[in-house]
């Protein structure tokens, strides 16, 4: 599946583009399982049970992967942006 970022649309700002680039960089550091779960959850909008079936994992394991991925993304992206709109 080839995924295109909405950052590509013309109305998006340079700031958003930089944030997505930061997400891009951090996502590359995640373990493959966590990256896959984030991909299926955030981009494909799949339920945890569906992801578990697709990956042959327990639903609790899928939830843990998503939990850990969010935690790592928050930790590493907090240095790159502030969700309140104030850039660091």
């Amino acid at each position, binding site marked *: *599946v*080839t*995924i*295109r*970022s*909405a*950052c*590509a649309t013309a109305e*998006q700002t340079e700031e*958003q583009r930089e*944030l*997505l680039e930061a*997400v*891009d960089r951090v*996502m*590359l550091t*995640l373990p493959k399982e966590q*990256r896959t779960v*984030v*991909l299926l959850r*955030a*981009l*494909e909008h799949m339920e*945890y049970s569906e992801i578990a079936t697709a990956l042959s994992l327990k639903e609790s394991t899928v*939830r843990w992967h*998503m*939990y850990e991925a*969010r*935690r790592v*993304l*928050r930790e590493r*992206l*907090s240095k790159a*942006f*502030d*969700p*309140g709109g104030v850039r660091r």
Partner: protein
Amino acid sequence: MSDQVMNCSRAEALINQRLDGELSGALDQTLDQHLLSCAHCAREMRLARGLERLLSTLEVPSAEPPGKPPELALPRWCSVPPPSSSRARPAAALVHTVPLTAAALLILAVALSLLYATFLRGRAPTVEVSALDVRFTDRAAIWESLNEDAVAASPSRRDCDGARARAACQPSDRRDGLRTQRCGCAA
């Protein structure tokens, strides 16, 4: 659940549930109360919201737009590596297919030649042996008939003493069966 028993670890789990849209009722209010009193968790909540919004801006295209601008770079982490199957790369597939086909044909040719050689080497000696057998049989039969004719025509035998045979043996002596037990000659 009261705010006293709510710690930051529990709040983080509830934040994830809220992000998944699975938090409601009393737990939702409990989390809000904790966020009001905990700056760390409140910041985590803001970061999590911002991250979810950021991830939600990513999309999966249903089809490749015809006039895709070059600056529309794909996120590296969600890109799929280019297909490496032989169907996608026919030239590369030929590189692997042609030698295999040639090897298979070579093996087939060798096998056929071996079978052919075995067929020739297996049947030809049989034919020759059979022919030799036939010839030998014929020759033996001819020999036998010739010997019989020779014996009938002459009383001489190899284990007979030539001189004695010539002196003693007579065709009539052999034919009567009385003196021809071994060689047709008189003892």
